[in-house]
């Protein structure tokens, strides 16, 4: 499996002060695979996600995405800012609180990566950005500022912004947790569409029914360790570990996804 995997994480460790957040984590995501990370807050799932694009620097272990591999821990030299930037350009990330750039229009938000990081000509970047906005169903919002958009629209722009870098991998950090319930569906349906197009994705989520529907594999984390891992449906429908069972008992695990009613 590790021969073909797109993301490979080995014995990853991370502490914040004396708090050990990640304890010896291993993770493989095959090309085109969709992995959902679930677990109670403080379980380390967001930190693990942020270690994949090195927004958080691990204390030990290794991270590989595509052909680029980084080793951390004793004796390993930390990558310099240029290497880090080049590496992060190949992974897209979507944040819980959108983090759109408020001083730019929607279109400028999506063009920013291609223009500043990929040094693309403005005209080409605009064409690409408009295509990505159309893809998330917001072509007509191109000239508006983020402040005028709903939460669901903001998150879809954030997805378009990440996609405009044409990444190999997409990382979602609780992308729907800050949204009003009626706006969750429109964002999930965009993520689902990406999955069906074969995008490699790691999704930190509390939407268990969504994870069951979209993810191939599911990882349940607690206190910085992987408690249970397996095919998403199998883990959700028949959890083996008692901790997984206890956690999942708080959720509706099946049923239809929230409808993507408001198209824009």
């Amino acid at each position, binding site marked *: 499996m590790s021969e073909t995997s797109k993301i490979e994480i080995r014995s990853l460790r991370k502490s914040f002060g004396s708090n050990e957040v990640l304890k010896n984590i291993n993770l493989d995501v095959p090309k085109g695979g969709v992995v959902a990370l679930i677990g109670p807050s403080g379980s380390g799932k967001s930190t693990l996600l942020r270690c994949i694009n090195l927004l958080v620097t691990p204390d030990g272990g290794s991270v590989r995405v595509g052909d680029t591999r980084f080793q951390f821990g004793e004796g390993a030299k930390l990558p310099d800012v*240029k290497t880090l930037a080049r590496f*992060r*350009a190949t992974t897209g990330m979507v944040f819980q609180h959108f983090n759109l750039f*408020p001083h730019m229009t929607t279109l400028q938000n999506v063009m920013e990566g291609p223009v500043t990081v990929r040094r693309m000509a403005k005209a080409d970047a605009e064409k690409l950005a408009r295509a990505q906005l159309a893809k998330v169903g917001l072509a007509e919002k191109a000239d508006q500022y983020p402040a005028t958009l709903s939460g669901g629209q903001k998150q879809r722009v954030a997805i378009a912004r990440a996609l405009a870098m044409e990444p190999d991998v997409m990382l979602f950090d609780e992308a729907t947790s800050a949204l009003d319930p009626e706006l969750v569906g429109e964002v999930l349906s965009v993520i689902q569409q990406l999955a069906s197009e074969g995008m490699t994705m790691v999704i930190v989520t509390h939407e268990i029914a969504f994870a069951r529907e979209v993810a191939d594999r599911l990882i349940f984390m607690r206190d910085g360790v992987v408690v249970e891992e397996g095919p998403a449906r199998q883990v959700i429908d028949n959890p083996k570990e008692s901790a997984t069972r206890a956690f999942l008992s708080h959720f509706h695990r099946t049923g239809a996804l929230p409808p993507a009613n408001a198209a824009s």
Partner: protein
Amino acid sequence: MYQWDFGILWSYRWLFLNGLGVTVGFTVVIVVLGLVFGLFGAFGSLSRFKAVRLLALTFIEAFRCTPILVQLIWFYYALPILAGVEMTPITASALALSLYGGSFYSEIIRGGIISIDKGQSEAGAALGMTPGQSMRRIVLPQAIKRMIPALMNQSIIQFKNTSLVSVLAVPDLVYQSQVAAHDSYRPLETYTAVAVAYAAILIPLTIIVRRGEKRLAVSE
């Protein structure tokens, strides 16, 4: 009852205008230089390297926490003895006022930068920007908007602080009016006129700043 006679000042009009020119020109110089020092101080205090941070903070606190009048005198009288640098009164006071203003500008600029949500630079980093790119493209454009009112306020204070350079015999508005007051025996009229001159320049400026603040508040 005191008999006011402002007419007497008319014969000193060129002296006053000269002084006003020096005051305004001096303000422009110390605001520009001060902003340069402020930028260095702010980025220094936010540096990844501890030594740079320490250096910047030492500069900021040294100038922020000592009186400007003492700094002016120290730069003119003490620095030549300690460092062997001979300076004209104008150079000494321009340097002291710029560094003093710069220490306050530093804190304003630093505050503006750190007031921008960390998620903004994270989003920049996630797109593959270097820290420099995300500072220029994402953080600074938002931070500058927030800094402008405070920077304008500090510059107004700087304008008034130039009145202190008269102690080093720099021929600014206050210095020239001292000359006029001694010459005419009319200090009341002279200093009233000087106060009015400062206010006449600053009141329109403060109105512009307040309008600007309102416009910025709307576009937030």
